[in-house]
């Protein structure tokens, strides 16, 4: 059965180009669906199992999302698809962390810069699908401050709670706030990886500097991605419970 791919890009020339990149990247048979705006993309996704990916329907396996679209921002779609079982990749002209970081927070598995050479894009796309998310130094730096900030905020009340409730009463606090706090923390290793990344080191260099295998470094990066995503989802959950939605 063909692998289903959705390419969302408003510029027809760029869409064409991305189609070529996708075809070049994978040897499997593919079924590429193209969408020029958010509305048609949503329609296609609804046909393919809806945003949560219903069982029994063949969902998209790969989704390329452009950020700037005629009827909105690609981030909206990413947020809707947070439960969708596909590899989501942002294709954009923006390489600054102000644009990319929110995309990663909304659950993007990686990003491609549209102005890169064809070969570069093919290689990057393959890497992402294989599970090697890219991280630029700027994004790494931003991740570091993100986790440092939320970690510090989360640590203080937790310590107080433990001190007061260590004896008999146990935890009576609502679960959604309490649980993700632990996930949001980075391990020392992950922090180390991020620090190296922020200084511009490649994964191979980091592996040799830390004395570990390159795929271990890769695992760390994937774990950081997951935590970022989890933390953003936890924030969404807190927000939702505050607004009485859950």
């Amino acid at each position, binding site marked *: 059965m063909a692998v289903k791919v959705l390419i969302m890009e408003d*510029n027809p*020339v*760029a869409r064409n180009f991305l189609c070529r990149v996708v075809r070049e990247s994978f040897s499997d048979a593919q079924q590429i669906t193209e969408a020029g705006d958010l509305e048609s993309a949503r329609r296609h996704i609804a046909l393919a199992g809806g945003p949560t990916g219903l069982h029994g329907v063949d969902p998209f396996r790969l989704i390329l999302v452009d950020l700037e679209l005629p009827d909105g921002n690609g981030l909206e779609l990413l947020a809707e698809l947070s439960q969708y079982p596909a590899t989501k990749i942002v294709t954009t*002209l923006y390489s600054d962390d102000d644009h990319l970081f929110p995309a990663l927070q909304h659950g993007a598995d990686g990003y491609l810069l549209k*102005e890169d050479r064809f070969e570069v894009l093919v290689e990057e796309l393959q890497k992402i699908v294989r599970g090697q998310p890219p991280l630029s130094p700027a994004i790494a730096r931003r991740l570091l401050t993100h986790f440092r900030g939320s970690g510090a905020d989360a640590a203080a009340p937790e310590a107080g709670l433990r001190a007061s409730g260590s004896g008999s009463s146990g935890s009576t606090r609502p679960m959604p706030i309490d649980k993700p706090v632990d996930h949001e923390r980075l391990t020392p290793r992950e922090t180390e990886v991020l620090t190296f990344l*922020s200084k511009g080191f*490649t994964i191979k260099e980091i592996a040799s500097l830390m004395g570990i295998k390159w795929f271990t470094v890769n695992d760390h990066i994937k774990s950081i991605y997951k935590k970022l995503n989890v933390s953003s989802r936890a924030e969404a959950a807190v927000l939702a419970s505050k607004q009485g939605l859950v």
Partner: protein
Amino acid sequence: MAGGDSHFDASAFEQSLEQRQPRRWIGWRLRAMVLAAMLGCGLVFVLMRSLAASPHLDATWQPTARGQLTLLASPVPALADRAGLTLEQLWVPGHAPLALDELLLQRTGRWLVDDEQRERFLQQQRQLSALLAQGQVRLAFSDGSSVTVDTPPRGTGGLGLLFWPFTAFALLLYLVGWGVLLLRPGLRTALYALMVWCQGFNLLLIGAENVRGLGLPPGFGGIDLMLRLTLDVVTAGAAACAYAVYPRRLPEARPIFAAVAIVVAAWTLAAYAGWLPQLWRATQAVVLGLGAMATAVVAWSYRLAADPVIAVMRRFTSIAVGTLALVSIAVALSQHLAGAAPAVAAVAAVIWYLFLASLLLLVPFLSRSRQVLREFALVAGIGTVASSLDLIFVALFALGPLASLVLALGLGLGVYVAARQWILNRMVGARVLTTERTFEQLYRVAREVHDHPEHTPQLLARLLRDLFDPLEMLWLPHRLPAARVVGGGAALYVPLPDEPDAAEPAQVLVMRHANHGQRIFTEDDAQLAARVVEQVLRAVAYDRAVERGRTEERQRIAQDLHDDIGARLLTLMYKAGDRDIEDYIRHTLQDLKTLTRGLAATEHRLSHAVGEWKADLQQRLQPAQLQLHWSFQADRDLPLTVGQWSGLTRILRELVSNAIYHADATQVDVQLQLEAGTLHLRVADDGKGGDPAAWTHGLGLGGVRKRVRALGGQVQWLANGERGIACEVVLPGFDGAAPT
């Protein structure tokens, strides 16, 4: 500075912050005040009625050099055409004629030096009242003519121009005395009120003496004399006592009170019993003696505690006593002079009373600005000095009245102009800083606050310290809505925010004893301090708004460039077909992105930029199968300007592009080094080498040269050992160009 005041207790200030609830004018205070005001008005009304009912001779006289009286002017028709004639006699048939000399023109016996003269004056006044009471008097003039004139009661409208302002001033003093006493009943305020009331009464009597025309109620002269003498003695005694308990109670308060009581009682007994042979001299001696005692007491109080309030009091007291001594000497010296001298003496004395009254009025409002009152006191003081000097010149140097008047006036004015600032400074003190320096400081502090917002309170405190030069400063963690003067000007509380953006001030800066204890804080100072703080914060807010506006505008331009031109270039690139043109457009696009990022970013730190450069180069070299050797060393991290960041980004990109596309290299070696403010960049490859200028894409190298020059550095290309070429860029003054 005496050490008695050194235990400076923050908790006391904390308490004063809590306590200072203004006492309200409700309840018994208001009722008592209204009652006091009615009482005062009633007294004035009685005096006014008595003066209005007394018969009078409405004419203005001038003494001649020989002690005779010349008619100057009169609204009475029978007298009007006799102006300029000398009065020979004033009598009523059946009564003894009145002795006519210049004494008749004296208004009070208070400042008559000679006992005999004073007795004659009183006698004359009694006689005059008796004559005027007959309803008609006859006047004979030097040209032989005589005329009969009616002496009607003067009526309320005929009290003259001087009566009303003096009465008003007296009432004001009276009410201020009550106000102070009612607000804080106690010994100190009672003594102050006593002084103020005495002087108010004095002014009321002066106003009554100076009604229009001749003729006062019968017996007024004698009562007036004794009252005024008593009032002066009591005032001086109260002053000496007051300083024993204000601003703080002296250990020697009791003996001082006792001494004053004995002196005042002794004087009263002697004066009323008529035992004092030289009444005026004795009284002046007692008054000046008590004044000197007050000066000594306040000086002693200042030695015990160097409080600026006491310092100001000491100045007030010594000035008042000094001028009184001057007036006394002048009057004593001029007692036998004829002509204008007695009138000048009387005026000098009256001005001195005004001076004293204005000083007394200033006391409760020391820390509040009372510009008008201050200037009035100054003019009155100088007037006293000038008129006294005038008398002394006439007496000592036998100058003509006009010459001495001109001389004294000139001297007085000279003293006024020269000493005004000095006296004002002594009274309330000078600003430590000139206006110009203040502005300079304001500007500097505003810039520092902008750069280091976390130091806002310290910077503002430094500015205020330079402004007021206080003896002590301390911080209180307290909220205060506005700057405030406390302790009668001893301290100033200024609320300061923690951050320039803070909505509410978080702490209070307490400054104590302005000008190193030489000056008291005034309400003006509080306002100035509040304004200074406000201005600094406003300047910072303005700077920030400007910067924010600039950043927003830059970001908008960047966004537009990136979105519009970027999207078009991208389309163009996809459609290029030709590999070279595609690469060229890609570089253009990347340059555009560098440009827009440079515009949009607010800050690039060198260490951050280096990380990005490395990742960028790595990403570009990898597909071309080139290996990157990267080394970076810096003795410190610093923020890059937009120009430095974009310049270096493009230089690096261009040099690496050359290595990729033109050198056929396999290795690229990049060394970046920041040492003592100089940035060294070396990009070397192991390619085919040769003359870089000969490369077809010389465009890029020209760009490198241009950018290095723009950054104020130098660039050169060298052979890199056996193979390849190295480019060396040196940028001196790299940290100096960047704002810190």
